[in-house]
């Protein structure tokens, strides 16, 4: 889990392509950690895109979602490695920005759920900030219960929707 290709490899990769990364156009529609990203298959070893790490299913950076308990916004310990990885990635890539989208399950008040989603997103942002990511690199927003990933009306769906996603530029 902890094995990261950071930071020396990335620094080298960044130095190799001096201009802004160009292969960032393919949007990741589905942020499910289990789904392998198709972008990796034509990878040419010559040009290493730092963003490829984000899409490599074997890399912790491909994990983007933090899940929460009902009416809670404290981050469970199991998500700490993932949050550390993203924070370090942002530190090593100061030109990168993330949008952190908070979500809530459908139960209860829509406005309260909007606020709850915001607090979940803020919790992730704050945790990454403490690990060195710059404020200007991160924006926390909430979708409340308005954009459910799972559309069922049961606990299995609700737990999928109590979530904050870390999205990089080009992914939202």
């Amino acid at each position, binding site marked *: 889990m902890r094995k990261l290709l950071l930071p020396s490899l990335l620094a080298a990769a960044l130095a190799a392509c001096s201009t802004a990364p160009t292969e960032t156009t393919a949007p990741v529609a589905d942020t499910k950690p289990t789904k392998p990203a198709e972008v990796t298959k034509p990878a040419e070893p010559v040009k290493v895109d730092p963003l490829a790490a984000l899409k490599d299913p074997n890399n912790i950076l491909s994990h983007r979602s933090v899940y929460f308990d009902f*009416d809670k916004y404290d981050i469970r310990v199991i998500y700490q490695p993932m949050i550390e990885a993203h924070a370090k990635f942002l530190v090593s890539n100061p030109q990168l920005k993330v949008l952190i989208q908070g979500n809530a399950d459908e139960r209860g*008040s*829509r*406005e*309260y759920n909007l*606020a709850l989603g*915001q607090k979940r997103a*803020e919790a992730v942002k704050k945790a990454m900030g403490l690990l060195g990511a710059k404020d200007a690199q991160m924006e*926390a927003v909430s979708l409340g219960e308005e954009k459910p990933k799972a559309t069922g009306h049961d606990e299995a769906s609700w737990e999928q929707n109590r979530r904050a996603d870390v999205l990089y530029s080009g992914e939202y």
Partner: protein
Amino acid sequence: MTYNRKMLSRRDFLHTGAAVAGLAAVPAHAQLRIEITGAGARQFPIAVAAFDGEGLLPRSISDVVRADLERCGLFRIVETGPQPVGETAKIDFGNWKYRGADAFVAGSVTRMADGRLTVRFRLFDTTKAADLGGLELTILTEQFRYAAHRIADWVYEKLLGEPGVFSTRIAYVVKNGRQYQLQIADADGQNASAALVSDDPIISPAWSPDGTRLAYVSFQTKKPVIYIHTLATRQRTVLSNFKGSNSAPAWAPDGSRLAVVLTKDGISQIYELRADGSGLRRLTQSSGIDTEPHYSPDGQFLYFTSDRGGSPQVYRIPAGGGDATRVTFEGSYNVSPHVSPDGKTLAYLTRSEGRFRIALMDLASQQVQIITDSDKDESPSFAPNGRLILYATEVGGRGVLSAVSADGRVKQRLSGFSGDVREPAWGPLPK
């Protein structure tokens, strides 16, 4: 008494024909007026006969009047049968009294030379064999529902001494597939029309106190932004589009400003600004979530939801900002506060045993009563006379609107919608 007469005269100028002679003759309706004491209130028995000539209309106007009166929970409809009774017919008071009706409504529909229709009715006190007055309304055929609501309002006010709300309107959001519509309908859910159609979520519609504008939150720009929509012109302007999220608009009772929830300084906090979007001022300073502001009708207080104490509860602050007082204590989830028009009762959403239901708190005694019996209720709002609470609930995995009388005894599902309906807001009395 003066209050009632004023209310009536305010409405009377609207009538094209002035068949209100009975009104002046019978200024005191105390004999028919009932005391409404909340829980256990008696229902007023009334018979509404089919109107003479109502076959000229697409639907029975007396049906709409009966449905209005019955739905509000304060009337019991005494069966009349299909026989029409015109307002000039000789009324058999003894018979209606014997059948249990303390009041009787008779009326007629006639076509005028220009094609418009004249609707007349009179209200009678069967116990005193007295004519309590009536109205004459000139309408286009398609306005018959409006005429029926006006009649029901007139009867309601005459018998109960407070304004009826049948000719008010409601706003709500319908989700159909991926499309969202902000709709406005009559208080009974009929005559719906879309004020806004969008591919992105719409939440939290709020009526301006004069009923001419709606504030709401749209995710159209991929984040929550507050707009104000003028109904007559269909024109909309951005009220609040600060960094982060902008949501939960609530109008001050004088319409001059709104309380809103912004995250521009971090987590959700309450701010106020003028209705033109200027003069932003922060009202709450907490380390938790503060949201869902709602002004008390006298404009003195701002009720809101906050989790500053560890769980979401209702608090209030002076409307200009200041120290918060906790209002709800029972349970671990009390949100979406709305104060009744008389300022005495707080409606809110409460969670207990995993169920989300509407609760009422008597603000003086702090006594709480849960008045709904479903699992997923949301968004309570009071009718402008305080007698009904409109809310969203779920039936078969689909959102629907329901209304419950403030004593919890009568519940009515509003029908006629297609799609998933949510976020209802009851509009003010017509000015």
